[in-house]
């Protein structure tokens, strides 16, 4: 893939880092190293280091305001769009730091897709929602095939195949969210970030999204932020628990396989949170 070459060519990596990156390349899709995010003077995320496993679902949980969404958005440089935000530390993707000078955030986002809390399809037709995403990235194949394939992968094809030319805004909330997922996978990212993708949906639509995630994880690495602990337990392979300190800065408390975090947490705070004693 030429995109990788661009990333590695433009980013200046120290040899030691390159070695370290190479070591984790087999099973590690993304690695945050001492990642901190600031909004102006306020530090929202403090020194989070995390290795995301390839083709697994990693859930980020934690109380409100602990910086999980901010951390997630830092993983594909979405925070760049917020004026006054600043990131320290590194995010290693495909062997290089996405925050290194010379890395184009547009390319980062093209390869690390994102699905948001509130479904946000474009005010265009169902078809154009997917086609536009592909077209701006220079897609030159058969657009009809791509749209169908993406919609099938998002388990939406049967519901919308007769209304491809209708406005995406006419779909139900759950359908809109799956359309956003279809749009994200149409451009073949390596990683999909999901920021509470089901929190605005009813239980049935939520279940469909969760089933979809189980399908998608065969081909993609998924990182999901969720408020819903049952959801984290149901869908994820790994769970990271974040909390905020006295300065309201989020930090990582515990990270491990979901089974262990939920059944046998190492940290007392994780246990208290999971059993519902706070948060």
């Amino acid at each position, binding site marked *: 893939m030429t995109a990788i070459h661009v990333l590695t060519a433009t980013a200046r990596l120290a040899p030691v880092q390159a070695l370290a990156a190479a070591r984790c390349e087999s099973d590690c899709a993304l690695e945050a190293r001492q990642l901190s995010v600031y909004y102006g003077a306020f530090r929202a995320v403090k020194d989070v280091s995390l290795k995301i496993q390839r083709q697994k679902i990693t859930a980020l949980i934690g109380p409100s305001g602990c910086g999980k969404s901010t951390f997630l958005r830092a993983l594909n440089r*979405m925070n760049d769009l917020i004026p006054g935000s600043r990131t320290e530390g590194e995010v290693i993707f495909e062997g290089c730091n996405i925050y290194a000078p010379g890395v184009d955030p*547009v390319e980062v986002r093209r390869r690390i897709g*994102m699905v948001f809390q509130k479904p*946000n*399809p*474009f005010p265009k037709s169902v078809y154009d929602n997917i086609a536009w995403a592909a077209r701006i990235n220079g897609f030159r194949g058969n657009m009809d095939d791509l749209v169908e394939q993406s919609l099938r992968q998002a388990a939406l094809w049967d519901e919308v195949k007769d209304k491809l030319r209708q*406005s995406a805004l006419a779909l139900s909330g759950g359908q809109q969210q799956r359309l956003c997922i279809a*749009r*994200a996978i149409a451009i073949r990212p390596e990683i999909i970030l999901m920021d509470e993708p089901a929190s605005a949906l009813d239980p049935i639509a939520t279940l469909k999204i969760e089933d979809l995630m189980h399908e998608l994880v065969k081909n993609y690495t998924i990182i999901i932020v969720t408020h819903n602990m049952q959801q984290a337990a149901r869908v994820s392979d790994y769970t990271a628990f974040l909390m905020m300190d006295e300065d309201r800065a989020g930090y990582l408390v515990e990270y491990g396989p979901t089974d262990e975090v939920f059944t046998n947490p190492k940290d007392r705070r994780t246990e208290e949170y999971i059993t519902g004693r706070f948060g």
Partner: protein
Amino acid sequence: MNTLSAPSAPTVRYLPEGDSFRSHMAARHKKGTLWLTIFQAATLVSILALTALLYNIINQSFGWVAVRNQVEPEALAIEGTPLEELSKEQLITILEAYISKGVMRRLESEKPFSVRSREDVYQLVEERVINPEILRSWPLADSLLRRSAIHQEVVETFPGARLQFRAWINPQFLRAPQSANPAKAGVRTAMLGSLWIVGLTILVAFPVGVGAAIYLEEYAADNPLNRLIQTNINNLAGVPSIIYGMLGLAIFVRGLEPVTSGAIFGLSDPTTANGRTVISASLTLALLILPLIIINAQEAIRAVPRSLREASYAVGATHWQTIWHHVLPSALPGILTGTIFAMSRAMGETAPLVVVGASTFIAHDPTGPFSKFTSLPIQIYQWTARPQDLFRNLAAAAIIVLLVLLLAFNAVAIILRNRYRSKRREG
């Protein structure tokens, strides 16, 4: 009654109960009713003001007029055939009988009688021979309420005159150019002037204004310089228009005279070679409405939901792709509305045009950016300033034309916006 301070109360009550509560309640409702009355009165006052304005305009635009013909049409009948049915040749003989040889020769040299149509000659007879003159006009209210008194007055003071009901706003008024005779004067030159000026103004101000808004909202960093620019633009929107007139006079009329007079393009004619042209007026008004367009467009761009931008960025769109494909289409209805409001402002602006040098009397249509110009508000101003009463009626009629044009603009804006909105909803 006051339970709050009752010492014997078993528990301290901080809120009124029973009768005290009810009387308290009544006072609260009374206060609400009072405010409601004030708001209703305010609405009533504004409605009254508007009604008074409309009444005034309508009152002046219609009504009885006393008309005296120099020669009665009946007197021109030849052998029992009324004037309307006479042939072209007979009409020419009438003309020859009533007007001097010199005038006939001039008419002949303007356009030979042999090629003039019958209607043309008939019009000449009407103008030159019958020559109706409006002696006095009465407003609509008087015309309706004091009919007999007016009749009486006409018989006494204007012997030989007829009373005629006249709508000052009529097709002829829209078609005729400016004239010193109130019966013949029209607003065509002023209307065309206004349309030329506003059209060119929008052509200049819209792209520049929207461009500046995009830069300021999407690209400009938050630094002292840009904040200063922003503050300046906000303040410019409140600068009195006469000052823009002075600016336009200095820059476009004087400074850029070779350009605005068209001399540089070889288009100059001796009457307009001084830069007091449509293009100077347009550029001045463009400066005037630029801050309005910028501020409105910025508001519209700011109102685009962040979720839409994020959706675009998240699929790997660049900044420009996001702006072009999502931000601008979504902001367009708001931008259009702001632009049309600015356009209405330009349409009604008078002071800067006076300074830039609007002609107060031109009888030929503007033909392009380098023509001399007048505009509707200028024409209205000029007519109201005339000493003769009859021009007041013309001014009222011109006001109706101006208002209808402005309402039409706004209607077009609303239709465009609604169509665009529903189109986006349907995808």
